[in-house]
């Protein structure tokens, strides 16, 4: 039995259809990205996964429980909402102590568990500072800690890095990657930053207008999105001349000069030959090879929108 089983789920709010026959499974220990434009149904689905909404039709099973299990469901699920706030007068440790108590962590293990989670999210040194003085990044990490303190089976992260600076994003990614690597917790992440989903997730579900447009392995979906690879090489010479020469190489679709760089579009299978020919033709100072990303998958399936 999968950790998350979503079968033909429908949900309507008045005349608005939020979810229209959504189905997908997530296996235990998997990290899945849920992406889609605003209004695609991500939030409605998350509400069901934490037991705050129930489907009008179809079934949802989370760690063997249905959304109407209410509090029993939330004992198994850790949820970090997009807008997570804490009492500013509380310290990080006090916030976690409260969450640990409500999540039923035994009294003799509570302090240790709180300390362990603080260590995991990198807040051990700030544990006894008031949350009101925390940065955005520290607040998000504290939010993640609240979801971990009860050792959940499923972790739901709703746009976890929104409004974080690059360093905060990197810190958060490292923590989630470590969780994914070192525990068997099932993680579902929503984000509009597709590179984040590519980095963190094994697989992805693209929702659009209440339905699943595409679902599958991230690497496989990227591969299916296109067979053309971009090569950007910085050359020590006349970039225009190099571009003209490269355009005749086998497998090259286009080659354009952007001095001192040359941008080359070529077949995925020809990329190593093209790089070898390029080195023979000129001195290459550096090179960057880019495969089609999830943005290409997203553009193909949803047709643009606000994810990036």
């Amino acid at each position, binding site marked *: 039995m999968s950790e998350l089983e979503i079968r033909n789920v429908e949900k309507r709010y008045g005349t608005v259809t939020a979810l229209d026959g959504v189905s997908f*499974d997530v296996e235990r220990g998997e990290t899945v990205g849920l992406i889609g434009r605003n209004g695609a149904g991500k939030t409605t689905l998350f509400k069901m996964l934490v037991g705050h909404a129930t489907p009008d039709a179809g079934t949802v099973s989370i760690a063997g429980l249905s959304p109407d299990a209410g509090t029993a469901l939330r004992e198994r699920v850790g949820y970090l909402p997009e807008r997570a706030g804490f009492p500013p007068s509380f310290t990080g440790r006090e916030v976690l102590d409260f969450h640990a108590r409500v999540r039923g962590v035994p009294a003799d293990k509570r302090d240790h568990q709180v300390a362990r989670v603080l260590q995991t999210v990198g807040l051990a040194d700030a544990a006894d500072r008031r949350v009101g003085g925390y940065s955005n990044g520290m607040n998000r990490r504290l939010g993640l800690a609240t979801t971990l303190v009860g050792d959940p089976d499923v972790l739901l992260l709703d746009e976890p890095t929104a409004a974080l600076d690059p360093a905060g994003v990197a810190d958060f990614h490292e923590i989630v990657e470590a969780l994914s690597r070192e525990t068997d917790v099932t993680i579902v992440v929503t984000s509009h930053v597709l590179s984040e989903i590519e980095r963190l997730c094994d697989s992805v579900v693209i929702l659009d207008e209440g339905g*699943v447009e595409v679902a599958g392995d991230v690497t496989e979906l990227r591969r299916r999105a296109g067979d053309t690879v971009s090569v950007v090489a910085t050359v020590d010479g006349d970039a225009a001349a190099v571009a003209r020469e490269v355009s005749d190489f086998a497998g090259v679709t286009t080659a354009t000069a952007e001095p001192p760089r040359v941008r080359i579009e070529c077949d995925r299978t020809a990329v190593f030959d093209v790089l070898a020919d390029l080195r023979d033709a000129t001195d290459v100072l550096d090179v960057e090879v880019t495969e089609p990303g999830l943005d290409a998958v997203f553009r193909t399936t949803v047709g643009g929108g606000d994810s990036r």
Partner: protein
Amino acid sequence: MTGDATDDRRTSGGGPATDGGGVSNATAPASLQTDDTAGLAAGDTLRATAANTARVAVREYRIAVRRRWALGVAVLFALFSIALVVLGGSDVGPSRVPAVLASFAQLGVYLVPLAALALGFDTIVGADESGSLEMLLALPLSSSAVVVGKYVGRAVALAGGMLAGFAVGGALLVRFAGFGVLGAYAGVVLAAVAAALAFLGLSLLASTLASEKTHALGAALGTWVWFVLVHDLAALGLVATFDLPSWVISVAVLANPADLFRVFVLRGVSTTAGGIAGVITSSALTTPVLLAALAAWIALPVAAAALAFRRRSV
């Protein structure tokens, strides 16, 4: 992970509604549940709800204390009670005590609701706007545990602050009039606290129904204007204009927690109240009825807030 291609092994079905009421696919086989086990499960659920309510209440109380709300209430009611004791009777002695206590009712009817409404108007909507409500709802807490817990936490802070503040005025009154006044004074204070808890419940309800903090503040102010300024005038105007029977006055008193406080206090002191206070004090309501009405004014708004909270979109 598998996507749309997965086969349809389940169909929609009904199930026991808890937080949301919808589809159930993980319940124990009904045939295995006896009345005893069902009773035990219900008892466990109640105990868990009570424990979680207490946890939320403690958290809310700590928030209130750290925001200096309890201290502010204590200072406010200390100044209020000192002012009434000192200024209300320039020569306070046993003979002047009823007049001083009557002043508590006449002026407290403005201050007590205002303090309670100010303390409670952002209980739910404020937490919603700050994002802390969504974090609470991410926990295995029922909606009633969140609402009632928040109310109880703020109620303890409010009541504690009021009791501490009134204690200062009480000490002064004892110094002027002796220990014999303590019983009557305690009655006034407890009635004031009960009225405050009723208005705190009303502000909790306003906070639950409001989508923005400014709306909740407006509703709280409207509540104060209605119950403190308009209600009695409207009721007496109707009685005088249409020559309605006296029981209408009793109904009007029951329909206003501020009046219940005023009647409860003025009944207990041997002084003559004039105007609106005199009319409502003459209502035929007995003390147990007044107490029951006050209890209902505390419980019903909180229960209504708990129900309204389930429909609130967070």
